[in-house]
């Protein structure tokens, strides 16, 4: 009886204040991040700039990234083509701008799918333990004992060059890594007092996993995701460089480097720009991930 009264007596402003409190805390966290993690904040800005470039690529790019201009092949950087043209007369700057879409697409798709699958597998493994855990973990061990790039190369080469195949290959590499982290967190959380408490009031396994498991492992997953982004983008470029990733004529940065490697002496600028773009984007993700780790888990730094 008193419980019902308490609920009904709770003024509406208090409830909305609770929501505002979340928002306020988030704002404060952001401020604290900007203040304490300056390098991380700059990296976040760089990432956002690249995302913006990818979205408005048609506005920024002066030329079509695929149309060829045989009259102006291997042209050095000039006012017309600020990063020169490649062996088929395509504008390098325009290709670079559109190429950011491929890197980000592969990165986002791989990381999102891997987090989803890895979290599911890791939670099942960590929550149930025993024989289920044993079988899942040995399969994950087996996948992780093959060097990542070699496994990706194996799968991508078998499936043939296509963006979705690159994503499949990279997901297979990343899933065990997320699963292992989530499993570890799950084992830790399973033993904690609050899970014990919710079990004692009769909460089911599914409810415990969703309500207590997930929110408590967001920090390590977010950090891992940021670092996985960088690795995934490099892996996509490596596969495309070897000719088994993104198929031509798509402007993938790895593919551009592969074309450029044939003209290293006559057109060295072709080697320079795609690699620079790749390095800066990956560096931004790595520095951002590093800053997030320091921010979310001060014990680790």
């Amino acid at each position, binding site marked *: 009886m008193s419980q019902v009264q308490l609920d009904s007596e709770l003024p509406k402003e208090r409830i909305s204040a609770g929501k505002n409190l979340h928002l306020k805390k988030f704002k404060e966290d952001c401020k604290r991040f900007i203040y304490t993690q300056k390098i991380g904040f700059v990296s976040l800005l760089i990432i956002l700039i690249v995302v913006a470039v990818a979205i408005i690529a048609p506005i920024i790019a002066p030329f079509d990234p695929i149309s060829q201009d045989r009259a102006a092949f291997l042209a050095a950087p000039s006012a017309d083509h600020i990063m020169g043209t490649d062996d088929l007369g395509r504008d390098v700057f325009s290709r670079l701008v559109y190429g950011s879409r491929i890197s980000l697409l592969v990165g986002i798709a791989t990381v999102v799918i891997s987090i989803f699958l890895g979290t599911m597998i890791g939670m099942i493994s960590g929550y149930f333990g025993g024989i289920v855990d044993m079988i899942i973990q040995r399969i994950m061990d087996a996948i992780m004992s093959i060097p990542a790039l070699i496994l990706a190369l194996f799968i991508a080469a078998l499936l043939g060059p296509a963006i979705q195949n690159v994503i499949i290959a990279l997901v297979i590499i990343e899933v065990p890594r997320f699963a292992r982290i989530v499993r570890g967190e799950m084992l830790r959380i399973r033993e904690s007092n609050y899970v014990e408490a919710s079990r004692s009031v009769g909460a089911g396994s599914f409810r415990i996993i969703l309500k207590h498991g997930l929110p408590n492992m967001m920090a390590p997953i977010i950090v891992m995701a940021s670092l996985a982004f960088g690795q995934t983008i490099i892996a996509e*470029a490596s596969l495309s460089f070897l000719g088994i990733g993104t198929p031509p004529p798509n402007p993938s940065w790895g593919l551009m480097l592969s074309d450029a490697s044939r003209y290293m002496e006559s057109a060295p600028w072709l080697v320079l720009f795609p*690699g620079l773009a790749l390095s800066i984007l990956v560096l931004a993700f790595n520095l951002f991930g590093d800053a997030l780790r320091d921010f979310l888990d001060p014990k680790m730094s």
Partner: protein
Amino acid sequence: MIEYIVRRLIFGIFVLFIMTTFIFIIMRAVPGDVVTLQLANSGASAEQMEALKVEMGLDKSVLGQLVDWGTNAIQGDLGKSLWSGHQVSQIILERLPVTIQLAIMSIILAIIIGIPIGVISAVKQNTFIDHFLKVISIGGLSIPNFWLGLILLTVLSLALNWIPPLGYQSFAENPIVNLQQMFLPAICLAITLSASIVRMTRSAVLEVLHSEFIRTVRAKGAKEGIVIFKHALRNSLVSVITLIGLQVGYLLGGTVVLESIFALPGLGSLIFESVLVRDYPIVQSTVLVFGAMFLLVNLIVDVMYGWVDPRIRAK
């Protein structure tokens, strides 16, 4: 200790077994097979293709092929290449030294670069130098190693008019040519590897520097150089060794791209060439060798712990 090693080896063989099954099934589940590739332009009849399949043992079920290959592999027979007909074990033994040499040279170079920078970062903790070195080392981690390879080749050929000698020669044949060919790919791999060594050395040295025994060492009036190099660095080696064990996977993966840029006939380029033409026995065996190397290095690393740090040995 012996019991521990034996247990780990059994566990390793179990993992390798699952891995081989995994690779085996994927390779045959994917469309496109070696028979179609080999007879693509010869206008061979369906019977001829069937006959070739029987000859290669590909007419059996996937499980049957796996059992066949597995029983032979345990007896040391990895089969023959479906294209050249050479013994797979022979091909792998020819190529293995290239990859191992590349990996070892990279690790040595990475240690030479990484440890001093890590120590400097730790000693200058939270100063401008520390932040600068942090960005540099994460930068090293972010540069794709194949791009580094291309840049080095471009700069050397344009500025010095020098490119590594073509045609691979082993160290035994011609040490000077061999080192000229191996140095560039090794340094590309080493730069990425050294970045993580820097981070690890820094945090390990910092941890030791804040421990009580270092306070004692300082209290007895030891010089700062001795404090850092004799005590702090030595006690942080365990974490650096662990890291190298963890990075072996990256290292072996990196060899694929670099071997292809620098035209080195190693295991990485072997698996790349073979998977494209669906040479099943070579791909399976090479993946097995890569997996075995990875597990073996990690076992050696775990055994080395005890050797480096007597406290772990006691447990």
